[in-house]
């Protein structure tokens, strides 16, 4: 319950524009707009996963709960079970997060491009399992269509 603040008692002039912080160098990304739910492609343009959520970490050296406007960094793009928790609430245990490390991201456009190949990434284990145990075993599964 916040008590209503009288307009005349506001600590600043309500008609004045708010001061802007210094503009960071380079391109500004909006995490929701440019990262969440975007398709990621690996170095060979093969789809890897859709960005289901982001892992944010506080800067090195801080401990305890984050307060106020402490800047955080995007450590990884997440995929997998985290989609269900993003829709229904809650959070999966850290061991079940499938991460794509932020340092592997090469470019962010209408898709998020990675600088590494998908076969080295842990997020694709389901794809590899289905390939090795189901699809790859059906005759013709490893040949190009004719």
């Amino acid at each position, binding site marked *: 319950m916040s008590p209503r603040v009288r307009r005349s008692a506001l600590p600043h002039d309500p008609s004045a524009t708010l001061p802007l912080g210094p503009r960071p160098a380079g391109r500004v990304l909006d995490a929701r707009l440019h990262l*969440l*739910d*975007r*398709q*990621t492609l690996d170095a060979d343009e*093969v*789809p*890897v*996963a*859709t*960005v*289901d959520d982001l892992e944010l970490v506080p800067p090195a050296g801080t401990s305890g709960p984050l307060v106020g406007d402490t800047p955080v960094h995007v450590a990884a793009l997440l*995929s997998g079970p985290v*989609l269900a928790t*993003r*829709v229904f609430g809650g959070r999966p245990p850290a061991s079940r997060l499938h991460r794509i490390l932020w340092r592997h991201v090469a470019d962010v456009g*209408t*898709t998020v491009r990675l600088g590494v190949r*998908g076969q080295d990434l842990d997020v694709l284990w*389901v*794809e*590899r399992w*289905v*390939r090795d145990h*189901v*699809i*790859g075993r*059906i005759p*013709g*599964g*490893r*040949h*190009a*269509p*004719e």
Partner: protein
Amino acid sequence: MKRLLGVALGVLTAIGGFLDIGDLVTNAVVGSRFGLSLAWVVVVGVVGICLFAQMSGRVAAVSERATFEIIRERLGPRTAGANLVASFLINLLTLTAEVGGIALALQLASSVEPRLWIPVAALAVWLVIWRTKFSVLENVTGLLGLTLVVFAVALFLLGPDWSELADQALSPTVPGDEGPASYWYFAIALFGAAMTPYEVFFFSSGAREERWTVKDVAQSRVNVFVGFPFGGILSIAIAACAAVVFLPRSVEVSSLSQIVLPVALAGGKLALAVVIVGIVAATFGAALETGLSSGYTLAQFFGWSWGKYRRPAQAARFHLAMIIALLIAVLVLMTSVDPIRVTELSVVFSAVALPLTYLPILLVANDPEYMGRHVNGRATNALALVYLVIILAASLAAIPLLIATGGGS
């Protein structure tokens, strides 16, 4: 010359690929009960699918993104997830109807029980999805589907009273023994048959499969604007055949053998053989499209690797999803459910789900971040808004009418 051939091939494929089991059944049922008094709905539906397919083809070619990736990006995981569930289930229902349609058509040709044909048909569909190149499967089924022109030929051979048919089509009235509720129910079913969402998933994903770029947009526009209206004319011909043969006798069409009866009456055994080839090709082609669409929607939502241009092993979850969808369709059909009944439901639910795919495409077609200077023009947007209203109205009215009329009976 090669380019001209390409255009001709595209147009012919669009004509042949326009018709599926939904169009065949709904048009014949409507023709037998309402004559041509609902032909205007086919015209509305064809203009709608031209607009929609052209928009989604352009979005796919320019932004290089397929429909469901865009739906997820635009609507977020929650709404897009609900959209995925609805679209996937309706697509599965349509896939079931198409596989059942192949089996019924093969039954007409062979007198072998459809339940024996169902696994064979599904296996054939899977083998083609598994091993055949995208361009081959699209062109072959499209060209064979052209044999459905025999419906138009049959209409001429039946020698109907043209002025009466024109009268039914141009000044539509609800026939005396039908209520307005069932008239509007079948109007929505026809609309849903002409504008099925899977056509858009298939069209936009197909554009990615064939690596369309901005240059190909003009070609796709010709295919759509010429091919689909001809497909619409074939739809009306099917309804007209049923109207000529069944309406005066008050016979209601409820099986595939009745749908082809006017053709057999007009052209004999040869025409019957041709129409069966056409129906097998049309349903087989649509089964491929809906089968692929079930993989496309899931893979694009979850960001899996997808596409026929990859080896199956390089798009493993995509292929597994299609195998499972086909198995479910077979299991449903093996319960001896009537494929014609499944078809009638699938076209109505297509109309229900249409706004879910239409709206995101319309939004992205106006978004310069994706489309650059290829955003919708004013005329397209004006028409698109009119259709947004029609699509929403049809979607909202469909289920109440389904309940009120007891499925149109």
